[in-house]
């Protein structure tokens, strides 16, 4: 799914990187805690759906080579953060919808969730594997 389609489905507008609207999104991941994004996302090209608007979100997007960041509930980061993202080629979008609805709409239209990455503690956890 392209960023342009993501924007249309959830009624989002581009804050930065609109020229990259045809970029393909491989999967989605929804989280507010940035260390969870670093811990749980394995592949590149993932769309991060988040309510966190700190400057660090864009740094994480850069470090992880994410396809873009979609802010929910109408949230918009500081101007300096948007400018940095624009200069670094990181698309930022914002939708008035809640994270729940945003996930629901994108999931229903076929966007897959990000692949599982073993968490740092999973290799030494004796419990049963997930079904």
């Amino acid at each position: 799914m392209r960023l342009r389609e993501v924007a249309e489905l959830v009624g989002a507008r581009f804050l930065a990187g609109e020229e990259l609207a045809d970029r393909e999104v491989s999967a989605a991941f929804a989280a507010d805690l940035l260390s969870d994004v670093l811990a749980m996302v394995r592949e590149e090209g993932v769309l991060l759906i988040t309510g966190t608007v700190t400057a660090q979100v864009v740094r994480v997007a850069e470090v992880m080579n994410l396809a873009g960041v979609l802010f929910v509930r109408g949230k918009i980061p500081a101007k300096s953060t948007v400018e940095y993202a624009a200069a670094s080629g990181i698309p930022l979008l914002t939708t008035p919808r809640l994270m729940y609805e945003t996930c629901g709409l994108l999931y229903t239209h076929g966007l897959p969730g990000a692949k599982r990455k073993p968490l740092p503690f999973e290799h030494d956890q004796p419990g049963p594997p997930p079904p």
Partner: protein
Amino acid sequence: MTSPAPLRHKEIFPVVGLDLEHAGQVSTEVQRVLRRLGVEAEVVRRAGIVCFEGEMNIVLYTPGGRIILLVYDDRVELIFSDQGPGIPDIELARQPGYSTAPDWARELGFGSGMGLPNMEANSDRLEIRSRLGEGTVIRATFFRRRDEAAGSGGAAGA
């Protein structure tokens, strides 16, 4: 026996405590330097993740410190040092989910207790030395597997 790999690049990045405006920029800068030096993409990615976590630890919990990047032919090292309060129980801090983050940090999306676990999971070796009231030094080592990624390391991004 092989002779020790020569140091190819050294760079020191100061980190200012509680500077949330700029926190995270060392990690992206380190990735740029590593890509420019032709370091393998897989090492660049892991080093970026580890650097981000180490940098945020310095910013959130200490008055400041620095990050030293060392690039050798066979490995990359990141050394994080700070003049912070120190870590009282390192074993506890290594556990996923353990966090001493204040509420304000949690509400900004930090403090999920995955900082040290993420550093450990993404480095090949992580050494932590800490003295209460004096500070903490963490060294993360990444071994370069150049036979697997030869020539493609510098291609991604710019």
